[in-house]
Structures are given as structure tokens and as C-alpha cells.
């Protein structure tokens, strides 16, 4: 396989930007969470890519990937639980309508 490393890096940068865009621009809390997941995945992809190209003998990158995936899973579980709780309260999951902390 002779794909240059930077192809992968650009791919993950793109994905990161797409995720960021989703997290910033969409109003729906669930979509925002999805955007965050996309950013997470882009980051993990970087871990694996560097592992493959630079540190193939080491197991560290895979460990980090596993832990990052677990954290992402925990994060999304909590996030979605929050979304459900918020929905019960506001009858909406639109982030712009949740302004209780407005100063």
C-alpha cells in the first residue's frame, strides 16, 4: 500500500472540520453530539494512522485508540442522557432555546 501519510492526515483534517462545522452550526443537540463524535473519530483516525506509518511495532497507539473510543462512548451516553433530560424539561432539543444561564 503506497498511500502517502498526508492523504490520511488531510482526510482526518477534513473530517474534523466537518464535525466542527456540524457542532457549531446546527441547532439540534443530537446533531451537535454527532458532530463531536465525528471530531473524535477524526482524532482517533490520526492515532491509528501515525501508528501505522511511524510506530508499527508499538502497541501504545492502539491502547490510546481503545481508551479514546471508550471515553467517546461514555461521553455520548452521558450526552444523550442529558439531551433526554433536557427534552423532558424544555420539550425541545434545540440548543438556542436553552438559555437559562443567560447573563
Amino acid at each position, binding site marked *: 500500500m503506497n498511500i502517502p501519510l498526508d492523504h490520511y492526515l488531510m482526510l482526518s483534517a477534513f473530517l474534523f472540520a466537518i464535525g466542527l462545522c456540524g457542532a*457549531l452550526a446546527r*441547532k439540534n443537540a443530537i446533531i*451537535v453530539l454527532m458532530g463531536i463524535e465525528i471530531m473524535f473519530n477524526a482524532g482517533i483516525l490520526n492515532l491509528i494512522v501515525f501508528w501505522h506509518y511511524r510506530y508499527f511495532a508499538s502497541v501504545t497507539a492502539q491502547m490510546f485508540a481503545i481508551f479514546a473510543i471508550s471515553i467517546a462512548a461514555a461521553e455520548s451516553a452521558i450526552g444523550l442522557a442529558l439531551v433526554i433530560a433536557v427534552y423532558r424539561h424544555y420539550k425541545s432539543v434545540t440548543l438556542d432555546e436553552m*438559555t*437559562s*444561564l*443567560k*447573563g
Partner: protein
Amino acid sequence: MDHAALQHLAQQQWWIPLFPLVAAAIQSLLPRGQRKLSAGLCIVAMGVSCVLALRALLATLGTGHHEVERVFFNFTWFHFGTTQLDMGLILDPLTAAMAAMVSFVGFWIFVNATGYMADDDNFTRFFCFLSLFAASMLGLVISNNLLLLFMCWELVGLCSYLLIGFWYFKPAAAAAMKKAFITTRIGDVGFFLGILMLYYKTGTLNMYTADGNGALQQAGALAHVAGWWGLSAASTIAFLLFIGAMGKSAQFPLHVWLPDAMEGPTPVSALIHAATMVAAGVFMVGRMYPLFTAEPGSWVMDFVMWIGCFTAVFSATIAVAQFDIKRVLAYSTCSQLGFMVMGLGAGSLVAGQFHLLTHAFFKALLFLGSGCVIIGTHHEQDMRKMGGLKKYMPITFWCYLIGMLALSGVPPFAGFFSKDEILLETFRRSKAAWGLATFAAFLTAFYMTRQMFMVFAGKWRGGDQDHGDGHDKHDDHGHGHHGGEPHEVPWNMWLPIAVLSVFAIGLGFFSHNYGLYLGVEGGEAAEGKAIVMGASLTVVALGLLFGWLIYGRKTMEHATDEDPLAAMGALFTFLNRKWYIDEFYEATVFRFTAVCAVFFRLFDKLVVDGILHAIAWVAWAISQMFRWLGDEFFINGGFDSGCETVRLGGKTLATLQSGRVQNYFRVLSLGAAILLLIYFFT
């Protein structure tokens, strides 16, 4: 016993805490109805631990060498990247004696608890916690590693929290549990800092290692390394560790939790005051003693001694003016702990540790005895409503008397020898501290006599009406019937105190042997011995005499009678309210926090909001001014819109705090983008 066999024994030390631990684990799963099984399991586990601990004790006794036989067993717990964390077990005289004491006293406390808690609904939960408590204390005692010690230390704290607040539905108990946990936690900060610093300086947390690089083995070297506050590293660490011990062993500024811990069931008090919680601090200082003594002439040792001395006197004075039977004992524990710490600070490991051992026996005896009294009088804790119990509870009376004499330091009971040793050491170090401590010994004898007469002499006053004094904190759990005739307690409650009283009589004669056993030379120097012994005998006699004069000649007739000492007026109230220490904390620490909170709220309201409001107000004022000055018909519209603009500005500023998550996120990513730009163009 030869070295190899001892070594093997050290490796097997972990069995000692294992049994109570497993018992606790099993009990946590038992249904609530299984009372007999739960208590039996607990007692059997503790008995096995006790047998094992006694075997270890015998093994170390049998060495017969003059130097200390110290065996340890270290192993790697886990790897953490490239570093590794070790664990270690130790077997030396200090550990062996302590473990034997903890398991033995604990065993009898457990037996007593079966009687004391017989009516409680949460019997199994109680024994589960009790077992865990004993297990963590035993783990603390046998650890050769500061990390393990710290873990067990925190477990001890947790268990005391759970047990003090065992009747958590009582607000006082709930408050007391929090107080105990938080106060000791303040000390733990110091302890933890000490551990960190020790690790930083020595690179290991094992106290002793085979290659001689253990933390304590490097104490001598640490004495030549600079630490903080002008101390050597060794002394600094010792100081920090001592702060932890102050929290755990209830030394002066951090003592406040101990009397409140009386809210727990009485066996718990016995366990906390005698064998486990408070002993942990003194034991830890003893264990870390090489660090304390590494740098000769540092002020840390003086600090330790004076803290101990002050605590001893201070709590003894408070104990004089209390009416709650357990509270008197609680302050006496504080005071005795002060003695121990003072002995350690005066430079004698043997004196402090020996007093810890003897005190454990007779204080457990006294607490269990007070538990018997409380049960015998149907959950009455106010001494003014007791009296004449000698007639109703003879066994309890005789055992209590032995405990009281031992605590007062009457020869030939155990307390006399150990306290005398401490006083002697203090005398050599500082005459002033010795004088104060002797005064504390006088007070000890006095308040114990007072307690004896109030509780056991005279006539039964329990039939009197409550007088709403505010001191009576009844245990209103179970059957709270008051006023019946007192009765003797069942055998499972008096047997433990009878057994313990044997030790309270006999243990003192081993003081010399204990010194040899710990491998400390000396203690035979005659200098000052006669003075000290004479003085302490005198003050004890005086204490008993005064006690009899004031309380014994004419016993209280009614529960509502004034305490004879109340004639002292304000001083008595001062002592009764515990020197107003709690009130002092209330007035300073709590008030400070509250003031801070108010301040920050005001800051938020006045400054943050104020700036915005001020902008708007200034604009409004300006516009008003112009309205008054100028012609409303011509320039009204223009200025209106101007004001509107400024007001909008204020509003815009306020929208920075929009409460919208995404806006914050947008700003965050904008910042990230700017950082990237900077990175990219530089």
C-alpha cells in the same frame, strides 16, 4: 525463631486483615434478618485474626536478640508505564504488639457489641462496618509501604464516618459524621503532602527495603537535605506527616471531631478511641519515628511535644465539666492521646507506644463499661440522671473501677506505669511541659473520680423528670423506655469488660520489657525519677481526694442539682462549653467562608452587573440631561436613538453571556483558529 521462619511469617501477615475483610464482604450481602450468622461470622473472623496476630507477637518475642528483629516482604503491585508501584508487609515488634492489641481488643468489643446492638434493626450493617473498620486498621498496622498505609488510613477514616453516622437519621449523628470526616481530611492533606515529598526525595514509598534504600532507612541522609521552612527534608516530612496524625489522633486544633464522634453507638466509640482510629495517628508517628529523630534539635519534636502537652491539659479541663458519660471519656481520650504524643515528642518512642497499648485496654474497658451503663439504665447518657448503680450493676461497677483507677494512674494499674514513663521523659526534655502534664494527670484523677461518684454512688436518680438541660442526647432508637429500674447487663456485655480489666491491671508491669522488646536502650537513668514518680503519685492522690471531697462526701440528690463545681461560675461554663472551640470555629472559619460567599455575590452584583448598569445609567443620565437642556421637539428623536444605541451596546455586552452552549463553543474554536494562525505564520 530463626530469621527464615520470621521472614515467612512476614509474608503471611496479610492473612490478619483478610479475615475481617472477608467477613465484612460476606456480611454486606447478608439479608438483614441474619443477625446471629452475621455477628458469629464477625467474631470468629476477628478471633482468627487475633490468634494469627498473637502468633506473630510470640514469634517476635522469641527472638531474644538484643537488636530489633525486623522482617518485611515487598512486592510489586502494578506497573504504571515505566514506573512501578510497590506494596509491602512488615513484621517488627511495633507492628506485632499493635496488631495483637487491635485484634484482641477488637475481638472483645465485637462480643460486647452483640449485646449493645441487640435491639437495632441494622445489626448486620453495623457488624459489616465494624469488621471493615478492624480490617483496615490491621492493614494499616502491617503495612511496610506508605501507599498501603495511606489507603488503609483513608479506609479507617471512611469506616469511622460510616459508623459515627450509623444512626444517620439523627441530625446530630449526621453532622458528627461529616465533621469527623472533614476534620480528619484536613489533616490528611498534610499527610498526603508528606507522602508526596517523601516520594519525591527518596523515590520510594517502601519504608524498609532489603537493599537499604527504604524511605525510613534514608532518614539519616534526608536530615542533610534542605526542606522547607528552614528545616531539613526529614523534619519537613515529619512535620507534614504529623499534621495527618493530628487530624487522626485528635490533637489540639483538629480535635473537634472526637467528642462529637460520641453520636455513634458505644462499641464504635470504644473501637475508635481505643484500638483503631485515634491509635492510627500515634502509631503512624511511631512508625515514622526515624524521620522525626533524624535531625537532632529541629523544632518539630518540640512542636509535637507541646501540641501533645497542650491537648492533654486542655481536654482534661474540659472533661471536668461534662455531664454526658461518654463525653467525659471522649475528652479523656483526647487528653491521653496528648500524653502519648507528648511522650513521642519528648523523644521516647517506647513511652508513647506503650501508653497507646495500655490506654487501648483500659479505655476500651471504660467505653464498654459506659455502654453497659447506658444499656443498664435504658439508654440514659446523662450522668446526673444516674447514680447508685453500684447496687444494681455490681460487675460493671468493679470493672469500671479498675478501668478508672488505671486511667487515673493509680499504682499498680497499667496507666500508672505508662503515664509515669511519659512524664519522666518529658521531665528530662522540658520542665514546663512536665509541670503542665502533671496538672493534667491531676485533672484526670479528679474527673474520673467525679464520674465514678456521679454514676455509681448515691441513689438512683433516673426516676426524676427530664430537666431539659440540652445535654441529654438519648438514643431514641429501638425501645426508648426511660425511667425503669437499672439492671445488670447480660453476660456477653460484661464478659468483655471483665477480661479487659485483667489486662488493665496487669499490663503495666511489662513496661520495662516493652522497652527492651522495641530495642530501645536505657530508660534506667535515675535522674529525676524520684521527683517525677513522687509528683505524679501526689497529684493522683490529690485528684482522688478532691474528687471525694467535692462529689463523694455528699452525693447528688436530684438530677436537677447544680454541679458543685458550678460555683466557679463562668469558668465552669467555659469548660462545659469546651473552651468555645466549636463556637470559635463557627465564628472564624465558617464566618469567613460565609463572608467570602457574600463578598463574591456582592462583587458579582455590584461590580459585574454594576458596570453594565452603570453604562446604561450614565447613558440614561446623559440623555436626561440633554432632554432637560435641549429642545425636546427638535432633537428628541436624535438623542433617543443615541441612547438607544448605547443601551443596545450594554445589551450586546450582556449577550456575551448568552447561555448558549454553542456560542461558547464558537468562541472556543475561533480561539483555536487564531492559535493555529499564529503557529502557522511564525
